[in-house]
């Protein structure tokens, strides 16, 4: 077990390093420096600026400097508004994290509930309804769902106010963000619950006269949750990219919408910093999920 954890952590660190490397060198492949403005600067000024920001050094040395600053938590400054990127991330990430975390909890909880219900009431009306809606929602891209929700509830029916700084209404963004993972988890939970219910230990429990409640919650549900946990890792990646779109549509001022704005503005330092930040987050989330998975299911070998 210990060996497995160490190996997994080392792989994660390697991945983060590779991500930093790719991001840095890709951004450096973009032609034109940060000082190419409409108003041409004099050669001397450009050289002075390059020296000031270490841009006259070889690329690899620049990379090392960048990495050193990253370790100190310094992402540099935004090209467009000159603000510290660390500060931008610091103020916008909590909003995204709150949104993403809520969506994740909603998706996991309702996904498991719907999936298990469908499995327990197989081929009855609730099962058919759940299967119908989960199939439907895996085919709707999140940005379309979000726009439709906005159109229906904010504009036509006016039930929910449009997002602004005062009314932090997370309801619609959370629904839009969690719909796809919820539908997916529902399908996953249904099959794994059906699988668990057909196992020998369930038959034994029944033969022993265990109550239905205990059989479902103690024996079947626990075992059916394992595949759901495996999916939670990739799902975090989905939620992080999905939140870019959702935040933009609902004009939530989180990190996701900041990233989209940075892409539209071609704000390279901001794109670079956000990519590295979010990618590291995804790698860590995947790592935790993997370790948790091994911890929950003792049948898996620590390879």
């Amino acid at each position: 077990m210990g060996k497995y954890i160490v190996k997994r952590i080392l792989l994660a660190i390697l991945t983060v390093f590779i991500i930093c490397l790719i991001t840095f060198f890709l951004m450096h492949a973009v032609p034109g420096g940060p000082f190419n403005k409409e108003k041409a600067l004099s050669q001397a000024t450009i050289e002075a600026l390059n020296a000031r920001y270490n841009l006259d050094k070889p690329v690899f040395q620049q990379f090392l400097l960048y990495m050193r600053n990253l370790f100190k938590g310094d992402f540099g400054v935004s090209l467009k508004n000159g603000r510290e990127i660390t500060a931008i991330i610091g103020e916008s990430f909590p909003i995204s994290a709150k949104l993403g975390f809520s969506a994740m909890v909603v998706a996991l909880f309702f996904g498991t509930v719907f999936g298990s219900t469908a499995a327990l009431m197989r081929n009855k009306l609730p099962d058919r309804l759940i299967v119908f809606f989960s199939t439907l929602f895996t085919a709707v891209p999140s940005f379309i769902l979000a726009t439709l929700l906005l159109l229906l509830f904010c504009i036509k029916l006016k039930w929910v106010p449009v997002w602004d700084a005062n009314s932090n209404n997370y309801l619609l963004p959370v629904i839009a963000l969690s719909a796809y993972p919820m539908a997916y988890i529902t399908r996953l939970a249904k099959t794994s619950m059906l699988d668990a219910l057909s196992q020998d230990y369930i038959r034994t429990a029944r033969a022993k006269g265990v109550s239905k409640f205990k059989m479902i919650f103690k024996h079947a549900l626990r075992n059916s949750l394992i595949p759901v946990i495996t999916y939670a890792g990739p799902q975090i990646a989905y939620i992080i990219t999905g939140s870019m779109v959702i935040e933009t549509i609902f004009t939530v001022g989180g990190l996701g919408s900041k990233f989209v704005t940075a892409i539209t503005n071609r704000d390279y330092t901001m794109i670079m910093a956000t990519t590295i930040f979010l990618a590291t987050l995804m790698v860590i989330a995947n790592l935790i999920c993997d370790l948790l998975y091994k911890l929950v299911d003792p049948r898996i070998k620590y390879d």
Partner: protein
Amino acid sequence: MNANETFKKNPLSLQLDLSKFSQESFIPATDEEKRQQGVMGESTTFFKDGMRKLFKNPLAVMSIILIGLILLVVIFAPMIVPYKYEEILSVNGVRDKGAKNLAPFTYSEKEQEFINNGGSRFPHIFGTDEQCRDYFIRVVYGTRISFFIGLFASIIVLIIGMLYGSISGYLGGKVDLVMMRIVDIIYSLPDMLMIILLSVVLNEVLKFSSGSLLAKLGTNMVSLFIVFGLLYWVGMARLIRGQILSIKENEYVLAAKSIGARPGRIIKKHILPNCLSVIIISTALQIPSAIFTESFLSFVGIGVKAPMPSLGSLANAAREGLQSYPYKLIFPAIVICLIVLSLNLLGDGLRDAFDPKLKR
């Protein structure tokens, strides 16, 4: 003289008592009766059997019909509708400025006048957009682009994944170990972020000669394909490697080896046909995921280059006048959902028909 009278039957004997049968019981069967005995089904191939199962699945049949219909419209509509996707509407050669944001099946004042004077005008089935272009033809072209991207991206994934996976799986040993470590690392890279990053960079770096299809699609789409080629094949490679690893241990492969078949023949004749179903299924499921990715990128603003429409960019553009012209969002949204839904269902149907083991 009767046989029963001559030989007294032992009461414990299990021999048939012939006296209980009449003479009619021993008439030879006619040819027709013989044929009725044959309960053997027609001999089928693996492919035929899978197709038969597929066509018994109503959801799969429905999605095949739906995809077929959408494809027919997408192929033939541009021949029937007299507008072009980038064409700004004009009446008698004069630009029609009133044809902005028309509702479905309505005409602008100028067009109405033209019709009243005896001219005929093709109806705007989905209305027009904010730049006075026929919206139906734009949705049709958007669907074309989305299909093209989905198909092309999954072919790229298929080719790279199949080559890599089968080499790794067949050679095994140290080669396999190293190749799979590379796959592990690529697999753990966040794909969407990498796509965005590459698109942003390649946009600045790549330049195409104008006029070619690639230039029309724009650098973003080319970078999307590059990213698919670089990152997305790992899932396919893993899948095929796993298949080959298990198939190569089968007795029939051993039998083929023992009678002296060469590796090339074994791969071609024994291994590939057996993992064909897995390949088909995952390619079918790859198409909707590529369409999803494209629409997401178009939404973020790094999708197909204007004026070329894609379903994602149309839906994104429709957000501008959402309050007044909701149908501009609804049409592309419905088309995306229908395509993805029917491809998903078809993929599920294929999986159930060709490979019941793979059932999730």
